[in-house]
């Protein structure tokens, strides 16, 4: 009589195990879904809050007017153009500095530096990422500003160059760290084959190793760029925040993030000014979304090529 008993027990046990397995699966499914729900939530919140302003003011004013001055006594204006240009400019500037330096540093750490140097340099660069942005902004005002003013002969250094340099410093850790991981994981066989064919180490690095690591390198640049577009405090402090459309990198600029940070506190909830800040946030969201999308597409393409 003991036999059927033990069989039922084992069946029960198995059913329980299956249920447990299912539950765990559901548990992780919900977690995976959570990120999507949050994303859709933020997207719709920005849209719902911003839409009335879009309707009232019109796309034309938002995207073609050069003036942003919602508290003016003369004429309230809501032009995004200037801050859009400012954000793109400072991000471009940051990438012009951070991409060559970052990839160069990553290649050095991965391919050239001896292990002892690598063990010191990489953590040090990663620590850079931990510096609070308000501290970086502060350095921008008191160190970088006067330095740039002297260098370029301008009256002050609160401009796009200042912002670009600071943002470059802030996105370097991301670019270096992820690029280095990508470069170091290129199989040794690739390099050996190249060297065996008579290529120098430099040729190997440029024509074999870096192309093979390209997907990781591109991802690192995109992540760094996302950081630069979204950064607020540093640019708010170091770029002067003049709302005029910048004519050059030596002009003071005011980014989208800085505008939201400065003005959200003073607006009356539900007013057109308040809602138009949500429009800025919405446009910013779309921009970072596009950056991520492009990086995903690039990654996918390179991964296919590599396979």
């Amino acid at each position: 009589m003991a036999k059927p008993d033990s069989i039922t027990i084992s069946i029960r046990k198995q059913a329980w195990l299956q249920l447990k397995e299912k539950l765990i699966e559901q548990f992780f499914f919900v977690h995976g879904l959570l990120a999507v729900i949050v994303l859709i939530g933020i997207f719709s919140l920005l849209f719902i809050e911003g839409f009335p302003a879009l309707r009232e003011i019109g796309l034309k004013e938002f995207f073609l007017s050069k003036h942003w001055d919602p508290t003016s006594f003369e004429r309230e204006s809501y032009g995004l153009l200037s801050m859009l240009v400012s954000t793109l400019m400072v991000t471009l500037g940051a990438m012009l500095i951070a991409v060559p330096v970052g990839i160069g540093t990553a290649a050095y750490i991965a391919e050239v530096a001896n292990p002892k140097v690598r063990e010191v340099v990489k953590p040090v660069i990663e620590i850079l990422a931990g510096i609070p942005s308000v501290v970086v902004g502060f350095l921008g005002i008191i160190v970088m500003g006067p330095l740039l003013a002297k260098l370029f002969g301008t009256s002050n250094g609160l401009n796009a160059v200042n912002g670009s340099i600071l943002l470059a410093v802030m996105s370097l850790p991301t670019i270096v760290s992820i690029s280095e991981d990508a470069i170091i994981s290129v199989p040794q066989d690739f390099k050996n084959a190249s060297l065996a064919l008579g290529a120098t180490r430099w040729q190997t690095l440029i024509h074999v190793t870096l192309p093979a690591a390209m997907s990781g390198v591109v991802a690192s640049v995109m992540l760094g760029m996302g950081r630069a577009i979204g950064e607020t405090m540093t640019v708010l402090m170091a770029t002067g925040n003049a709302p005029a459309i910048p004519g050059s990198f030596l002009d003071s600029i005011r980014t989208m993030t800085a505008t939201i940070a400065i003005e959200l506190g003073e607006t009356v909830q539900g007013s057109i000014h308040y809602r138009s800040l949500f429009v800025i946030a919405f446009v910013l969201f779309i921009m970072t979304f596009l950056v991520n999308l492009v990086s995903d597409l690039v990654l996918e393409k390179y991964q296919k090529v590599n396979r």
Partner: protein
Amino acid sequence: MFKKSIVLTLTAVFLVGNVFAQDFIQVKGSDTLINLVQRLAEVYMEYHPNTAIAVTGGGSGVGIASLIANRVQIADASRPMKAKEKTAAKENGVVPYEIVVGIDGISVIVNGDLAVNDLTVEEIGQIFRGNVTNWKEVGGPDLMISLYGRQANSGTYVFFQEHVLAKKDYSQRMKRMNGNAQIVEGIIADKSGIGYVGVGYVYDDKGNVRDGLKVLNVAPDANSEPVTPLVAENVKSGKYPISRALFQYINGMPKGAVKDFITFELGPEGQKIVEEMSFYPVAGEYSENNKKAGF
């Protein structure tokens, strides 16, 4: 044990204070005034544990709107009530009485090396509107002017715009700085800069004007003598043109605890706190103004 007894005492004081507080005054409004009124309230409550005063900010407009809606007893404002607001108050059956608790002088500052000492209000307005872009147009060296101002959430930004720029827009090239201190730092580093800050911000810790900074003398118009805001008398008497009264509004003739608190604010100790917070005490026509509300 000692710590515990402190905590207990504090709790007891807190509880008793709350239980026996018969009067509760709510003050709301200007962010320029918030630190001052908070300090005044703290000192007042030390003498009058039976009165509780809550001070919040939000801006002059918010404070006045709350007074009109009869949600607060006192509204702080760094500007006088607008005609529109007075009408709204009347419609709501609120009769606002106006008190001036202190005076604030806004100093116009330039770099210490700049060879400009005096400007008229009109010239300053033209400079900040972006119509005058070179120092030589106002008698200075051939140097492009670089502008430093506050951000739109600042009451000083609005006051300056109303009274110096005649409500015209600021130049789009004006750098919008985070606070008074940042403007001062910017001007000290910038040979061609001009900015505006509260008088309290131009001094170092020894009470002298900071190195590398120059406070301009300002004339109301081209025919008048330029005056400096660094002499208290000039600001108090209204001779210095860019000064403003700091107001409080009360619904109806003040009485009871509210009257008592305002009497304290305007008394010698209250006015000493006003000076400690880098504003100027009430004098001249403003004192006359306060008499109308019974002080």
